[in-house]
């Protein structure tokens, strides 16, 4: 819980708030109380109706946000665990010496709690939304055993380089309920990618939760000129271990099926990283794999408070495509890598959110909790 969302403060403040009687404005000609407040903000008396914390400091965020807590255990996934949960698959060698990564992905229909007390009938890959973050290395052979345990036909359509047969669209790699399909292709190009269901109607299949991150780390051997950068991106290296890497899938949920989202989030649960900020070790750099799968809205965005970052659109380059920005936007399926550091900052809570204020206030916001040490 963050300072501005503590319920006991909220309760106390509003119970203490004075109840100066309001006259029938229209007849008596007197306006509402609380409009006469502005100039007195610093030294004036406490004015009824303004939310203040226990020390008397005004705080308009006291009552903002969702109420209650999501049962992550019942959901089967925790948004905090999703941030760093990479699935490297089962690794083996092919006869020609190449690395083979094998994954199994099962579609499961599952009701998930996307905000406290609010349930959504999701279609999931492996019981979680977003689906597993599949991580491989540039040039690996990928083999995915795709089992459709759902009630509709589904596919896995990868944003990557593959043959038409492996495209994961109706007619090429679609599995009926109960059926299995095996996708096989090379992990190319390196970058921050995604996969999603491409069965018709696509809008509904994506919106119901069938999407996930597909990250291809660069192979340093193929990039001798930028070997150091590539090594920092490659999971398992000493250079990479320095980084604090997080996967963030920007999504939304239309709970009443009116083609507008009632909930916006990163990794599904509204305000998950506001209620419980993401701990960051001040001195270590941060890398975010950011993917937008939001339905119904043309773009989504990411804005970082008090800091700037370098951005690699699609993650397919080793030099930034944008330098020193604090806001980027992505259309649906657009993705990229953000790199930044708080090493010159003082510890504290640094907000991040979509800079569509609408999305922010409907759940897509969070905090980095920058500390000297992260346990």
């Amino acid at each position: 819980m963050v300072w501005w969302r503590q319920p006991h403060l909220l309760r106390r403040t509003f119970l203490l708030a004075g109840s100066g009687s309001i006259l029938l404005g229209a007849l008596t000609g007197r306006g509402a109380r609380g409009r006469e407040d502005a100039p007195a903000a610093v030294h004036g008396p406490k004015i009824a109706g303004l939310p203040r914390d226990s020390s008397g400091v005004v705080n308009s965020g006291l009552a903002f946000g969702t109420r209650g807590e999501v049962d992550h255990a019942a959901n089967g996934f925790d948004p905090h665990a999703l941030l760093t949960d990479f699935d490297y698959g089962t690794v083996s060698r092919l006869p020609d010496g190449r690395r083979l990564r094998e994954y199994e992905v099962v579609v499961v229909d599952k009701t998930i709690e996307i905000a406290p007390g609010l349930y959504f009938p999701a279609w999931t890959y492996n019981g979680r939304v977003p689906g597993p973050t599949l991580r491989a290395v540039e040039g690996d052979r990928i083999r995915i055993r795709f089992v459709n345990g759902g009630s509709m036909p589904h596919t896995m359509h990868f944003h990557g380089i593959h043959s038409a047969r492996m495209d994961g669209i109706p007619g090429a790699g679609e599995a009926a309920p109960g059926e299995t399909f095996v996708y096989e292709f090379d992990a190319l190009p390196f970058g921050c990618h995604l996969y999603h269901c491409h069965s018709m109607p696509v809008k509904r299949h994506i919106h119901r939760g069938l999407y996930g991150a597909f990250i291809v780390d660069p192979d340093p051997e193929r990039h001798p000129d930028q070997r150091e950068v590539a090594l920092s991106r490659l999971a398992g290296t000493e250079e990479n271990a320095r980084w604090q890497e997080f996967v963030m899938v920007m999504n939304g949920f239309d709970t009443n099926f009116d083609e507008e989202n009632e909930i916006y989030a990163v990794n599904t649960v509204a305000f998950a990283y506001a209620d419980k900020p993401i701990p960051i070790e001040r001195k270590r750099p941060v890398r975010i794999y950011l993917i937008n799968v939001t339905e119904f809205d043309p773009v989504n965005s990411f804005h970082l408070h008090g800091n700037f970052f370098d951005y690699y659109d699609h993650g397919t380059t080793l030099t930034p495509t944008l330098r020193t920005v604090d806001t980027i936007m992505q259309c649906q399926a657009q993705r990229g890598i953000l790199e930044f550091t708080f090493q010159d900052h003082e510890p504290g809570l640094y907000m991040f959110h979509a800079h569509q204020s609408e999305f922010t206030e409907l759940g897509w916001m969070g905090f980095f909790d920058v500390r000297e040490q992260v346990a």
Partner: protein
Amino acid sequence: MSRARLLAFLGVALLVVATGWAMWWLRPVERLAGDAPPVEEIVVERTELDDEGILLTLRADGSEPVRIAQIQVDGAYWRFEQNPPGPIGRLQTVQVRIPYPWEPGALHRILIITQTGLSFEHVVEVALPTPAPGAMEFAALGLLGVMIGVVPVAIGMLSYPLLIRWGQRGLPYLLALTVGLLLFLLFDTLDEGFEFVALAPPGLGAGTLFGLLTLLTTGILLFVGRWGAGGTLEGVRLATFVALGIGLHNFGEGLAVGAAFTAGEVALAGFLILGFTLHNLTEGVGIVAPMIGRGPRAWVFPALLLLAGLPTVPGAWLGAFAVTPFWVAVCFAIAAGAILQVVIEITLYLLRRYEAAYASPAVLSGLATGVGIMYATALFVPL
């Protein structure tokens, strides 16, 4: 006889057992509905705005208890306290307190989202502080009630001396005018009543009740009106029932005005008073018309004035501080029934007394004038 009883008993028992077995064994409802999500309905019955934010009184309806998951105000999630907490049973009410910094004069949209993701929107058209039930507010609303209810009717009734001078010749015209204005009020009452029917929770069956109550009221008043009067209703007695019908209508009007103040829907109090004055003026004429040539005593006039005009005052109080759309609809149904009764009575009186004259130019032009004046003056009422 006992054999017939036994047969009847056995028949009923057999039916009950057979139906029970069929429901339990064949499960027709489950077969038809499958695992369809529960039907849910939430209706906001009262909105109050004060220093501490927004206070909603909600009534739930549905096939299962409704759980409120989250609430958005103006497209942002806002924390709230529900009292009593937990699921809301069918037709039960709860209060929801949202500490939202509402803005005087602004429009606010509230979206209540249930656990199944269904959403119910409630719009506060113009946010104004809800009058707290203090002495000052009662006095202010009471004064408003007098201004829109009693004063215009009094002015209308003051036309009596003029009307007497006109004498018996003008009576068919005046009575027809009264019927015209009452017809207008009847449809106006029905119209307003159905607006509140629409706001009431569907589970309460307010629409059906509205129709039945209207007709029931008419029937009862027709009976009461003629009790001991030898089957005719005229003179002061007829005027009394006209005043009663108008009074009930004005009570409903008061409820609507009071409720509108609470809901922040009245922006132009001055214009409202002017409109009602013009509008209700004609009502006074209608009340005195049946007494022309009957030489009523002087006290009759203030008595009828209070009967017709004063109900606006308690109406405004109740509307502002207590009443829900369902009860407003009930009040309008009773008012419509009372108006229908006097429409019937005056029409019968006209027919009986001026036998062949019911289609005369005097009657038709009176009707048209009554309806016309009421319609035209209604245009001045901004509600």
